[in-house]
């Protein structure tokens, strides 16, 4: 009897720790309404131009064939109440490839280390321009291919802009949150938040730099799988 009761307690505790029991899953799609303006052609310098065989454009509106909008930062406005999350050991990578940042938009947790990598056979500088107190602006040189620098931000900020002053068309954005419930939409506009969300009431926010922001209040029960879809609009000229 004692053994059986202990087994139940351990199983429940294990489930809570691993997040595989009673957790909700939130996913969905962000769709763009309207016709976005044409992207603009990037004017490379001679060295970066050699890395491309075709003209490249800006990435303000990356829209899939069925209207799915990429590079939308989707996140919970507030994480689960009363819970704190240590920064994960996994380090996302902000790469510099063919004179572009990859990815264009990504997310990290506060104090989570992430890597900034130069995969190009040429010199870049990496200039982060956060605005929130506690997040330090930095500007580092990465003159050699393969260089990797680890950085982190201490404060929540959506979004921190990164730029290269050597190549002014290079810029990217990093969202920083104190919880892990965020995602960036893929080329089809789809996203999935981490599948270990405790039951509760949340506000899901979808933020795109040009199409703006939308939010939805949701309530999830244990084990729920909920689709949360957003529609953002191309901004009107007036």
């Amino acid at each position: 009897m004692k053994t059986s009761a202990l087994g139940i307690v351990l199983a429940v505790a294990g489930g809570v720790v691993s997040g595989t029991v009673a957790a909700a899953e939130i996913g969905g799609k962000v769709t763009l309404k309207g016709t976005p303006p044409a992207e603009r052609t990037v004017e490379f310098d001679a060295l970066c131009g050699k890395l491309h065989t075709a003209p490249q454009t800006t990435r303000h509106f990356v829209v899939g064939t069925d209207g799915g909008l990429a590079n939308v930062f989707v996140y919970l406005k507030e994480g689960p109440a009363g819970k704190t999350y240590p920064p994960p050991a996994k380090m996302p990578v902000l790469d510099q490839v063919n004179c572009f940042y990859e990815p264009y938009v990504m997310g990290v947790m506060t104090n989570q280390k992430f890597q900034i990598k130069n995969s190009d056979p040429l010199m870049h500088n990496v200039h982060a321009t956060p605005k929130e107190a506690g997040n330090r602006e930095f500007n580092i040189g990465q003159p050699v291919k393969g260089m990797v620098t680890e950085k982190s931000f201490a404060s929540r900020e959506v979004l921190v802009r990164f730029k290269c002053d050597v190549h002014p068309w290079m810029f990217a954005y990093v969202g920083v949150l104190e919880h892990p419930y965020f995602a960036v939409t893929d080329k089809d506009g789809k996203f999935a938040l981490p599948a270990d969300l405790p039951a509760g009431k949340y506000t899901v926010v979808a933020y795109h730099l040009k199409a703006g922001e939308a939010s939805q209040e949701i309530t999830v029960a244990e084990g729920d799988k909920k689709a949360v879809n957003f529609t953002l609009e191309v901004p009107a000229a007036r």
Partner: protein
Amino acid sequence: MTRSTPNPWLARFAWVTAAATLGLICVGGLVTSRGAGLAVPDWPNTYGYNMFFFPISQWVGGIFYEHTHRLAAAGVGLLTAVLAVWVWLAEPRAWVRWLAGAAFGGVVLQGVLGGLRVTLIADELGVVHAALAQLFLVWVAALALFLSPGWPSLPPVPAAARSLRPLLLGTTVLVFGQLVLGALMRHQHAGLAIPDFPLAYGRLWPSMDAEAIARYNQLRLETTAVRPITAFQVGLQMAHRLVALGIVAGIVVSARRASRLLGRAHPVTRLARVWVGVVLVQFGLGAVTIWTEKSADLTTAHVGVGAVTLLLGALACVIACRDMLGLTRVWDAHAPPAGVAGSGALAARLTGPSA
């Protein structure tokens, strides 16, 4: 070395230094126009190299502009150092020697400011750096004017025309204020806060509430890494436009009044007439800067011509206020500058208690 007559070569060297400073302002303007101010993250080194030995093969992208600016600044620093020493050794007027010494101090301060702007990543220091550059240009050009053989023979401003002085001075101060406004706008690194001209977002006065600013930012399709615009930046550009109108009016009135009070041949009048032409060019460049979405080259031309606008006003002020400020003392109390026609009599008249 002689201390009794002006040295035309020294004056020429001073003018060359002033011209080099103007060139340096243009190169510095190009750095900001290209968004390359932080393309080299270290200072005084360049990517770890001594800046004078940084390999040319690595002068690429924004590095080219920033590194060239640093080398050009070193050149102007050297010219200023030589000028200061030369003036100190050859110039009998103590106040001119001190002006030259201060110019050297100014160029050192300017270099350190430029470096700190990089290492501290401080945009506000960029504004101070830009403003000090303009003042330094005026300083060196005024020094060159004082060293010029023709300086003592410039005609004075008669008492009846002295009302011209506050007008010239006020307009010149306004020009300097406008340059500071411009530097503030540029060192926000936010690109064009208002994309149209002469209207502003299609209106005489643009909306500046939070919703409007958010919409402006959404509508922009940036090709370079500029910051989002703010209501403050929109306000700055509107102020820049209004001050521009005031400056054009001030300069036109100055030129007309100088012509009426001093005659067309007076150097102040001649300077003021050139001033009118330059400020009209500058006004046009401001419009073109917007219409070309801040083309780097045209924006830099706007910075350069802005510096010339300030310089012309400042030189006109110096000449107009020369006797009032006691700047009429010649090289030697009794020796007229060699080769300056009529300067002997003028020098004798101008020297006196202050000589």
